[in-house]
């Protein structure tokens, strides 16, 4: 058995924030709510959990002075299902489908992270063919996730049309998923040790076709938004976050890259087959909503590039490594993280030598990124809160787990 305090210490070490941050993220004083509009600390508004723009069931308590935001407090947990606790009562392979339900718009990435973490724990390596398939599907999923983000983000800011464009194109990704593994959203595409399914007949051709189809579509979104005056005004300079603050808060993913840090786990610690491919890490300079938008658009293009390279040269061979039917990893712990569409998705798995994990802790990118919300919207207007929630690209299934 493992000493529990050791685990707790490890977990808390990773989530400790910079000491300088603490005063800026202090909690609201919610007691004095009988004062009126005119005094400075005034109106308290509950945004959510039932609200069209909080992406599910996020509840943000806003402290407003007129339209100006004095502070926010996120209340989370409305979608809590205890995924991490469930893991302690499932075998390693039984828990695999559960991770799909966390970030349900990027289920493939979640599965990839979990499978690779357990593989590391078991000391097996997926065969190259499986790793290529994993890369292709994960990058397709990144596209789908970014498309969903773009549609909902634009909808939050008031442009209703991009939503339908992105959903039209995301549908094509989902069709490929469906053909590959039978599911569209919560795919459960990968298994520990590789993939369960061989690519279907014409998989490569269809992916190629999809690439040709989607490249002009991304230009179409950019045409609609990138130089749109209102869009630029609504996003430029909104929700600024500097590189230093990002690092201090543990913010990762496009949000970190938009503030100028060239940090992508696909390059920093290549997993799957990413070391074989040539792609760039798009970065921004200002760390505002507009830069995050541009970074994500660029990332979509880079994903297309990766898929294009991967799909031509999927190696032949087995798709799954030799993995025992009953998995009993040696006593120990492992932390493995991947670059999910929303940021660093980490799995910390502790094994006590039995068939079930002793503890699984997920480091969900949305949850950590959401911490930055309060800092980013202080002093902004109500409409900016909506824009910033959109630009953080949170999925409540992942935040609440």
């Amino acid at each position: 058995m493992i000493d529990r305090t050791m685990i707790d210490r490890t977990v808390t070490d990773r989530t400790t924030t910079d000491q300088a941050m603490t005063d800026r993220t202090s909690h609201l004083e919610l007691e004095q709510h009988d004062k009126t509009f005119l005094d400075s600390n005034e109106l308290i508004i509950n945004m959510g959990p039932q609200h069209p723009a909080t992406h599910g069931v996020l509840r943000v308590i806003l402290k407003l002075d007129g339209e100006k935001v004095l502070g926010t407090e996120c209340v989370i947990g409305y979608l809590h299902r205890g995924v991490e606790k469930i893991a302690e009562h499932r075998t390693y392979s039984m828990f695999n489908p559960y991770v799909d339900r966390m970030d349900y718009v990027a289920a493939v990435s979640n599965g990839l992270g979990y499978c690779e973490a357990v593989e590391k724990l078991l000391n097996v390596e997926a065969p190259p063919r499986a790793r290529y398939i994993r890369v292709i599907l994960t990058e397709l999923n990144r596209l789908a996730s970014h498309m969903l983000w773009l549609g909902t983000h634009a909808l939050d800011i008031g442009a209703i049309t991009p939503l339908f464009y992105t959903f039209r194109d995301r549908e094509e990704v989902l069709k490929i998923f469906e053909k590959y593994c039978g599911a569209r959203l919560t795919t459960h595409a990968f298994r520990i040790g590789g993939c369960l399914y061989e690519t279907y007949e014409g998989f490569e051709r269809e992916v190629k076709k999809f690439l040709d189809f989607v490249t002009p579509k991304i230009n179409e979104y950019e045409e609609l938004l990138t130089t749109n005056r209102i869009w630029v005004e609504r996003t430029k300079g909104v929700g600024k976050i500097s590189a230093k603050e990002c690092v201090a808060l543990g913010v990762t993913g496009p949000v970190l890259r938009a503030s100028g840090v060239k940090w992508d786990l696909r390059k920093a610690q290549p997993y799957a087959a990413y070391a074989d491919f040539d792609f760039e890490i798009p970065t921004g300079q200002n760390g505002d909503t507009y830069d995050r938008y541009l970074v994500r658009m660029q990332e979509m293009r880079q994903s297309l590039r990766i898929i294009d390279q991967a799909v031509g040269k999927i190696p032949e061979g087995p798709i799954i490594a030799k993995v025992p039917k009953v998995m009993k990893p040696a006593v120990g712990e492992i932390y493995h993280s991947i670059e999910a569409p929303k940021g660093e998705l980490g799995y910390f798995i502790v094994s006590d030598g039995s068939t079930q994990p002793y503890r699984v802790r997920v480091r969900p990118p949305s949850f950590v990124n959401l911490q930055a919300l309060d800092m980013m919207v202080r002093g902004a207007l109500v409409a900016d809160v909506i824009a910033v929630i959109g630009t953080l690209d949170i999925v409540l299934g992942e935040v609440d787990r």
Partner: protein
Amino acid sequence: MLDYITSYLKSDTTPGQAGNLLWALIYILLIFLGLSVAVIAMNWLERKILAHMQVRLGPMRVGPHGLLQPIADALKLLIKEDIMPAAADPWVFWMAPILVVITAFTVFIVVPFGPTHAVTDMNIGVLFMLGVSSLSVLGIVMAGWASNSHYPLMGALRSSAQMVSYEIAMGLAVVSAVLMTSLNQTGTGTLSMIGIVQAQQAQHIWFVFKFFPLGLIAFGIFAIAMVAETNRAPFDLPEAESELTAGFHTEYSGFRWSLFFLAEYSAMIAVSSIAVTLWLGGWMRPFPTWLSGETWDLVFSLIPGLTFLLLAAIAFLGVIRMPKHPYFRVQTIGLAGFGAVLGLIGLILLLPPVRDRIQDIFWFSAKVALSMYMYIWYRGTFPRYRFDQLMRVGWKVLLPLGIGVLILTAMAGVWL
């Protein structure tokens, strides 16, 4: 009695000026009916056009191509439970939608659909329209306050600030158009809606093109301000769905909500009619001087009928493209019937006696319809402004521009 009825037909003024109450009532009834039909049609058209802009089909289930959808929606709204929040102020909560609807419909008293096709012609026509339509902000403020809830209150505050701000720019643009009615030092200007169109007729120019580009700029200011005034995208902050859930009508449901809906669309039609009257030549057909003469008159008078025939043809095309399955039989027959009605209307409009009478109304409605299409287009294209940006546009762009245009128009009017 019969004399009383027929005497008006011989006169060439509006029933209000002729003092003929009966015909005034008939006109009011006609406008009310026409407006209701227009709002229903707008509802369907907006959903269809927006849907086709967004690569989807829009309503397709109720009736052929969803033609009966607005009626189904209206029925649903009427029989829905009417919820009033417990902490609401019942009186004000009740009065708000009624006030909004009344103001939205009252402005149509002075809208000139033709030289004599208006309920009445007021000496202060434009002032009356602006004034009464500015009363609708009271209804919105009342609705927001009476709901006794935070989101509606914020929506009401936003809308009152927004509408009061844009009214100023709107007023300046209107004044510069009114200045154009007095031409060449001699004539006196007019605020009467019919008088303004007649001035355009007499000067052989639509005011958009007068003192180019002054008229165009003034029209542009008005076109922006009127979108803000009717709380439509990209200025739909008072009911910004993603921010304030539904703004001032968050707490409204059922019948009272449908009154807000009705008022919004009729207000859109109302401000569009002001724009059409002031700048786009009201009931005049396009190119009245350039393409003048008997032949062109005939050609242009055929257009209303031909438009309806074209719509009928589109409907019949839809009939042909309908799937040949027994399940779609009712829909096919319905669409064919709809096309037949449109075709019949088109044929009636081609008859010479009808043709001459209906022309003014047709051109006016066509121009208003164009403006309504622009509304839908904006909604499909633009993101929403933020509140400070909205205020900046209103006060720092439109207002100085309006004052500049006004001064330049006055100078041009004196010296040109």
